[in-house]
């Protein structure tokens, strides 16, 4: 989230698209009802299904899953055509005026530089024209045909309301109504918030779905303001924390990168991370990269990380591929290239696409370690449960270790919510039975590995032998010790660079924030964006002051919000070029002639003058991007691509299947189906009664939603002779599931490109362990396809066939 949950109450219009906040985020959704009840805010829901969110919406429009980009580009076109643009914002805070390199073009669904063989782009033309002074060329009048604004207008010209209806199946008048309501938020005193979740991410072009809305929000002037923003509703209670601390194959904490093979030494690595400002006077905050990186290395390897050895740069693994994401991991298992797997706190057998492939892959492992509080299906993947897990146990030789760990109520520590708040919590009870905290489990693994290396030696032992392990009880690090490390501390005393006689901070102190981190080895910091969470003043995450002066929704003394306790990112953009709030009733920070002040921690230096430093400090431009240069693998502008399995052909680029640079393994292509064989557009989702595959272990939740079902329209049910509450079978080339049929008016057939499209909704909460009835899930059917940029699987749009059935054999 750029903003926070509590800030949603400041909005005038909530657009829920690519998510179902009421269903999947009912507690956060309270801020939508607050905005509606107290501000008269409106709620729009755009979704293939009439969801629980739609049940309380002011306006609902249907859309075919996987066509969001066409819809959103259509809205952008509507806003531009009808002059519903926050011009001052666009001109001041976006790259609309930037001139793009000659050679960049888009035609027939492809941008320049496509290599069909490698399924990737040469992105060299996707950039700005740089002047002799090293700064980007611009045309503030927006007249230059090669400026971003004009290229954008040209790019979206084809997404007329008629085209939107053809692609998305959204009736034109409904689309226009939504577009009109959204466009009103271009006014300075109107804001719109975008609430989205996995309905946008779980597509082969998920990142571009989100970009489309981000661009719309920029055009409306809604980023950085109260009640605005791009608000990703995270799908797990601490999944924000997971990405923050870099639990990704290509990241280290704080969104720093794991080096690639080509970056053989620290100098090479850091040279490509200079992030020189592209406009005069800009902050380009990533120029501090080396400070965060070196501090991280010091936190990892302590005294073993020295200036002489490039702070142990060589200890870091080097990627030979862009990422070892989950899809690649299981592909490698399936290919016999990966033999062991540690599975901590998730359930791949039900969570990852193409369950058949997951089962097959796990069966090829030599060992599998499952660290989980619950008896997951993954830990039992080898056990035959009839139709619900039809495996030949005798043929599976994988050795499975189950290490029982603890649930949140048995843990102490911080959970990071969608709004980037690190909320400390305390254990409510002791772990049951043999369950141990994950930290204890990891410490045991580390200590025993280290001992083995010490006693027996081994290849490249140094990173393990030298790992900085300063915990009071090395066998059991405590959450507050780890939190202190994440915050960072001074290794040696810090002296004033301008006056070396002056000691600013003594050695061994908690740092107050990432601003004091240095790249000379004098500071250590586990995760720079969390810096400030546990200072000398104490545990900021444990704060519980719910005072909210002037009811802005900031709650600045409630826990800690990264970065730097900032509640709304890009908050400089809440004020105009001269530093006055766009909407005085929604003041966030303002320039008082000397400094920025207000309700939030300013994004830019408090004394940075307006008209000099732009609000988007993480970009070298200092401005936001309507055109993303080469930052995204599938294009600097979003373009409509169909899902890999689509009921209709791509009407804007008929020759292209799916996103041309999406993650696809050749071995999976044969499992893709076509619309003539599998005519129905399926999608998967959660229900409010459950959380993933966890709560089916809880009796109460099992009572509230006991049994696996699929949802279909009354029309499709009639066509197929399927009864409400009766059994049906849903299948494609990857699998087949039996489910109860919920026949509902909430799913309506759509007409796309003149052809009726039926939607099959498949919720995901059932398996073969726990209190609920045994069932299957959508991942028996979903394709092994990932987003072009971050490899998120395409769970939201695929094809199936459906028929009436007598239920599973063992039901």
């Amino acid at each position, binding site marked *: 989230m750029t903003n926070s949950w509590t800030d949603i109450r400041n909005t005038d219009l909530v657009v829920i698209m690519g998510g179902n906040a009421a269903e999947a985020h009912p507690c956060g959704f309270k801020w939508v009802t607050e905005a509606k009840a107290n501000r008269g805010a409106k709620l729009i829901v755009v979704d293939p299904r009439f969801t629980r969110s739609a049940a309380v919406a002011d306006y609902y429009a249907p859309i075919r899953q996987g066509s969001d980009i066409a819809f959103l580009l259509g809205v952008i076109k509507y806003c531009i055509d009808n002059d519903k643009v926050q011009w001052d914002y666009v001109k001041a805070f976006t790259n609309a005026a930037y001139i793009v390199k000659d050679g960049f073009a888009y035609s027939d669904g492809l941008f320049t530089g496509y290599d069909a063989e490698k399924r990737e782009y040469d992105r060299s033309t996707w950039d700005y024209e740089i002047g002799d002074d090293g700064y980007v060329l611009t045309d503030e009048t927006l007249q230059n045909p090669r400026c971003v604004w004009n290229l954008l207008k040209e790019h979206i010209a084809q997404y007329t309301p008629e085209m939107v209806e053809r692609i998305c199946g959204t009736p034109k008048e409904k689309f226009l109504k939504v577009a009109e309501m959204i466009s009103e938020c271009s006014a300075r005193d109107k804001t719109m918030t975008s609430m989205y979740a996995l309905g946008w991410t779980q597509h082969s072009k998920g990142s571009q779905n989100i970009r489309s809305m981000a661009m719309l929000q920029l055009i409306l002037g809604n980023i950085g303001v109260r009640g605005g923003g791009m608000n990703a509703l995270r799908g797990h209670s601490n999944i924000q924390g997971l990405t923050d601390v870099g639990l990704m194959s290509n990241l280290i904490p704080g969104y720093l990168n794991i080096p690639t093979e080509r970056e053989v030494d620290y100098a090479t690595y850091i040279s490509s991370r200079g992030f020189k400002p592209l406009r005069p006077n800009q902050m380009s905050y990533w120029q501090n990269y080396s400070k965060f990186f070196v501090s991280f290395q010091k936190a990892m390897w302590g005294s073993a990380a020295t200036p002489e050895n490039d702070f142990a740069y060589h200890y870091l693994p080097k990627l030979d591929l862009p990422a070892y994401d989950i899809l690649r991991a299981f592909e490698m298992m399936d290919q016999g290239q990966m033999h062991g797997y540690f599975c901590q706190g998730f359930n791949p057998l039900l969570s990852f696409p193409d369950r058949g492939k997951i089962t097959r892959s796990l069966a090829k492992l030599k060992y599998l370690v499952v660290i989980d509080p619950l008896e997951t299906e993954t830990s039992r993947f080898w056990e035959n449960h009839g139709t619900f897990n039809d495996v030949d146990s005798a043929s599976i030789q994988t050795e499975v270790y189950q290490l029982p760990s603890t649930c949140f109520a048995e843990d102490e520590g911080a959970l990071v919510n969608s709004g980037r708040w690190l909320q400390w919590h305390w254990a409510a009870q002791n772990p049951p039975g043999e369950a141990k905290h994950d930290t204890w489990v990891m410490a045991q693994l580390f200590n025993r590995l280290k001992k083995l290396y010490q006693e027996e030696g081994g290849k490249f032992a140094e990173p393990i032998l030298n790992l900085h392990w300063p915990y009071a009880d090395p066998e059991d690090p405590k959450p507050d010790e780890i939190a202190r490390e994440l915050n960072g501390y001074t290794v040696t005393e810090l002296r004033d660079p301008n006056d070396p006689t002056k000691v600013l901070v003594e050695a061994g102190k908690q740092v107050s924030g990432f601003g004091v981190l240095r790249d000379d080895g004098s500071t250590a910091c586990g995760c720079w964006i969390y810096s400030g969470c546990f200072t000398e003043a104490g545990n900021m995450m444990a704060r519980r002051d719910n005072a909210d002066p002037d009811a802005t929704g900031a709650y600045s003394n409630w826990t800690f919000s990264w970065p730097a306790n900032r509640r709304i990112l890009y908050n400089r953009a809440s004020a105009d070029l001269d530093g006055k709030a766009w909407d005085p009733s929604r003041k966030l920070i303002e320039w008082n002639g000397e400094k920025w002040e207000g309700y939030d921690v300013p994004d830019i230096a408090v004394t940075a003058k307006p008209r000099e430093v732009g609000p988007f400090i993480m970009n070298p431009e200092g401005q936001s991007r309507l055109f993303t240069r080469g930052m995204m693998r599938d294009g600097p502008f979003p373009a409509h691509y169909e899902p890999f399995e689509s009921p209709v052909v791509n009407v804007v680029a008929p020759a292209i299947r799916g996103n041309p640079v999406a993650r696809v393994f050749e071995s999976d292509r044969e499992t893709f189906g076509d619309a003539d064989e599998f005519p129905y557009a399926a999608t998967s989702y959660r229900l409010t009664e459950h959380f993933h595959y966890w709560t089916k272990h809880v009796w109460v939740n099992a009572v509230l939603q006991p049994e696996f079902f699929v949802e279909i329209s009354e029309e499709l049910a009639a066509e197929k002779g399927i009864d409400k509450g009766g059994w049906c079978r849903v299948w494609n080339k990857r699998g087949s599931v039996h489910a109860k*049929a919920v026949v509902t008016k909430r799913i309506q057939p759509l007409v796309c490109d003149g052809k009726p499209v039926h939607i099959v909704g498949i919720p995901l909460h059932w398996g073969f362990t726990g209190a609920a009835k045994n069932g299957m899930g959508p991942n028996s059917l979903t394709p092994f396809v990932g987003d072009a940029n971050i490899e998120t699987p395409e769970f939201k749009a695929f094809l199936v066939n459906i028929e009436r059935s007598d239920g599973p054999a063992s039901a």
Partner: protein
Amino acid sequence: MTINVNPPVAADTQQQMGPQDYIRRSASTVPEPARKLEAVAKLIDVSKCIGCKACQSACLEWNDLREEVGVNVGVYDNPHDLTPNTLTLMRFTEWVNDENGNLEWLIRKDGCMHCSDPGCLKACPAPGAIVQYSNGVVDFVKENCIGCGYCVQGCPFNIPRISKVDNRAYKCTLCSDRIAVGQGPACAKACPTKAIVFGTKEEMKAHAANRIEDLKSRGFANAGLYDPPGVGGTHVMYVLHHADKPTIYAGLPDNPRISPVVEAWKGVTKYAGLALMGVAAAAGVVHMAISGRNRVTVEDDDEARRLTAQAPGAQPLDPDKEPMA
């Protein structure tokens, strides 16, 4: 007005609430209470409800109830009806608005309405099994319940359920145990969208008025408060977007009242029946007093002897035994 999720209860309801506050007690009478608690109410704003069932879950948890894990029958309503363990239930209705052709997914939290004139209490034959507090809470007192099911017949909303396990009646208590110590009901506390709020009835009506105004501004011309006068008003009220058609919300009665059949049963029949039986018995006494017993005379015996003297085949009496003592 913003209502807190876990509302501070008005000062005068923070006092302990107990038997001294009964204003009605089934099949018995109670003395006029010395004080009158301020009327409380739970307001369920259907237009804010997202059907998340947190209230159902909270109800099960707070009351420590264990419902069966059921099956799916093609709808989201689970369990499929109120049960002795499910004291509150989300009922989902897919309703197409004729006026604009729009689908509306109406989600109503069903449960005891806590009528001011409670039909269950009227029907109950067991003294003290159902009580009504002066703040409006209608509560079942398990110890006194005999499981006859009369409350089921008496209720205009089809709420009470009789347990097959202990043969006692169960329904929402409005968390009388929580209210007694100044807390709101568990469902209201759990509701994430403040669709369920709790406070004094006056506050709730004022809050509802705000909500209705908001709904009218959104095109729901018939938005209104459901506080049916037929049962003297209720202490659980709904804000409905279509208050002119309560039945579309999963059969919420348009104009609930205690059934005339129940009124007849618990009214005239009860008294007339006793009277009738009394009259019958009294008539016997009077008749006996006036006319004396109808006795067999010696002549009757003689006549019988005469008539039967020659009856063929009659069996002889044992002369040693007295035939009729």
